[in-house]
């Protein structure tokens, strides 16, 4: 048999039917649902008189629109409230395996709750009407975002019409330096291949640096693969994967666990499997990353200076850089470490898990937020992450440093709720997108790791966390 990549195996094992042109009907194991991209899909089902194909595949929560403070008051924004209530109604009518509504103790960001509860299992196909579904690839899943029409299609048929992507391997070798995180590796990869570099590919992250990452680090890496243009990113199963899953609420138990583990260990690329493209990164050379522009590929290290468009030869790129600098209010050649910030956001499906919060807390412990920082907020990824952090006293560390400790949700990653930047405000953010207006109209986002965001909150400007004391 020919050697297969992990992606080839996942693709083949989920193929139900293939058209002559290669359009393939893929079986979907897990369907994650949230309030923003599902109402029109459920409405479509109702209008056509269709039912869910398999209720047990659906795991749902409200996360994008939910407030992160004053939960006792409910959702103040009436339009957001309607959307969240519509999800309640739809789940009640159509059913789900698991539903964590607003204010449930396990509610949280959909890409945090899946792995946390063991509803994301190796070898699954996982879809969600959210591009950061790539996060679940950390568990050797074929996981990617889909549009609302496709959400409806999966609800009604348990399948997705898809064309096979090409295989890309991103091999990250070597020891990860202190102060450098999975987020920095992800941004370095995006800086190297560009925001469209992975378009048309499924990426497998491999190499000793990836093996050394915890599951949470791998989730951060896979989460950002969409920012490199790749819908799906994944990591092969190893002992770290299996240990993480053991004992999770919905993970298999007893004899089924033993059988599952035997199968999961096959979820690796075969020796000699052929990749259409291979990219190599030396982890030892990666420095803490900071984005300077309005696309995740506009990224540099903390040691660098804001680039000069005059040195760019390509006209479309040069105009893009000039527009980004105007939007970001930055001058060419300014050292990144001299950029002053107004706000700090620690959270999002990229960086809101317990290890992220521990790392950020270690940086701010015993210190105070800078006077020029008007708001530093920490938004845990889920109810259980919040509970765990409070058990460890992390919330006190943040609060003592002048940071706000909030309720879980997507929050200022996309600013659909009340958490947002005002026009012109500059934010050190652990989220995933620095697009114009992403964190609020006119807001300026710099993507960084949790440690770098925390340190910027204390210093008032970006600092090299490798030298932090």
């Amino acid at each position, binding site marked *: 048999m020919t050697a297969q990549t992990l992606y080839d195996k996942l693709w083949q094992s989920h193929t139900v*039917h293939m*058209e*002559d*042109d*290669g359009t393939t*009907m893929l*079986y979907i194991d897990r369907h994650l649902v949230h309030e*923003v*991209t599902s*109402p*029109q899909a459920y*409405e479509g089902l109702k209008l*056509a008189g269709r039912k869910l*194909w*398999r209720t*047990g595949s659906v795991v749902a929560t409200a996360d994008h629109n939910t407030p992160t403070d004053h939960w006792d008051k409910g959702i103040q924004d009436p*339009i*957001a409230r309607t*959307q969240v209530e*519509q999800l309640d109604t739809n789940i009640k009518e159509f059913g789900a395996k698991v539903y964590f509504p607003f204010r449930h103790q396990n509610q949280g960001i959909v890409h945090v709750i899946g792995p946390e509860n063991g509803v994301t*299992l190796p*070898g*699954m196909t996982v879809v969600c*009407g*959210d*591009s950061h579904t790539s996060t679940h690839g950390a568990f050797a899943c074929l996981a*990617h*975002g*889909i549009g*609302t*029409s*496709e959400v*409806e*299609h999966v609800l*009604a*048929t348990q399948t997705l*019409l898809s*064309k096979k*992507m090409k295989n890309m391997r991103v091999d990250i070798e070597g020891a990860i330096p202190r102060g450098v995180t999975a987020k920095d590796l992800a941004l370095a990869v995006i800086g190297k291949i560009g*925001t*469209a570099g992975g*378009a048309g590919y499924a990426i497998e992250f491999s190499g000793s640096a990836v093996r050394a990452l915890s599951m949470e680090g791998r989730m951060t890496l896979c989460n950002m693969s*969409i920012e490199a*243009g790749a819908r799906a990113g994944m990591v092969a199963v190893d002992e770290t994967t299996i240990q993480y899953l053991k004992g999770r609420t919905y*993970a298999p138990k007893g004899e089924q*666990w033993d059988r599952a583990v035997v*199968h999961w260990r096959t979820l690796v690329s075969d020796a000699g499997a052929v990749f259409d493209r291979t990219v190599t990164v030396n982890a030892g050379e990666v420095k803490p990353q900071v984005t300077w522009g309005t*696309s995740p590929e506009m990224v540099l290290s903390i040691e660098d200076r804001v680039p000069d468009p005059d040195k760019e030869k390509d006209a479309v*790129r040069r105009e*893009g850089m000039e*527009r980004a600098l105007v939007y970001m209010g930055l001058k060419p050649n300014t050292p990144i470490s001299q950029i002053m910030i107004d706000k700090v956001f620690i959270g999002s499906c990229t960086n809101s898990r317990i290890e992220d919060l521990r790392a950020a807390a270690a940086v701010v412990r015993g210190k105070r937020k800078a006077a020029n920082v008007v708001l530093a907020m920490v938004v845990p990824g889920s109810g259980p992450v919040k509970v765990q952090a409070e058990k460890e006293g992390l919330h006190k560390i943040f609060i003592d440093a002048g940071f706000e400790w909030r309720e879980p949700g997507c929050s200022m990653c*996309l*600013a*659909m709720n009340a958490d947002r930047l005002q026009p012109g405000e500059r934010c050190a953010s652990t989220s995933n*997108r620095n*697009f*114009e*207006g*992403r964190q609020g*109209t006119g807001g300026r986002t710099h993507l960084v790791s949790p440690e770098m965001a925390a340190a910027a909150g204390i210093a008032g400007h970006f600092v090299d966390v490798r030298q932090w004391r």
Partner: protein
Amino acid sequence: MDKFTVHNGLVLPLDRANVDTDAIIPKQFLKSIKRSGFGPNLFDAWRYLDEGQPDKPNAGRPLNPDFIMNKPQYRGATILIARENFGCGSSREHAPWALHDYGFRAVIAPSYADIFFNNCYQNGMLPIVLKASEVDQLFHDAAAFPGFKLVIDLGEQAVAYPDGSKRFRFEIDAFRKFCLLNGLDDIGLTLRHADKIKAFEELRRAEQPWLF
């Protein structure tokens, strides 16, 4: 879904790369539970000088005179041309909904983000990939000739100038083409294979019961 066969329309040249779906339709409009009504807020942050809100009327809002879509000669445009990686970022189908609701029937660019590309097909919108040099030519001619139009023939897989002076071929998956030409709904087509899905599912349940 609307059928797409032949379309003759006015071209709007949006000379930018990496246009993301947050720019196409900003997040505050994603609170809607409907599929329609997004057109007035297409490119909201670029198109208006103030901040739009879902509960705010758009009539009378100050327009950004520098944004190309607001220039009178492009009023009624139905074909959007853009640079590489159009539609990157968020998976929101609200982006093609907004483009379609505004009146666009096709986008022409050298490349697209994968999710946006798929989402277009679900809404009777045609995302056409042409070579970068061909897109360059279109940008040049759209600037040079006021009222620049194109004729898109899906059956022939061709983008042509109305006077026939230039013609560019494009590729499209046979299945997608068939669905667009006939305005077919994917779900109905898929459910013709319901027995196959059931059989696949039963086998999977037997082999990996922990997935169910």
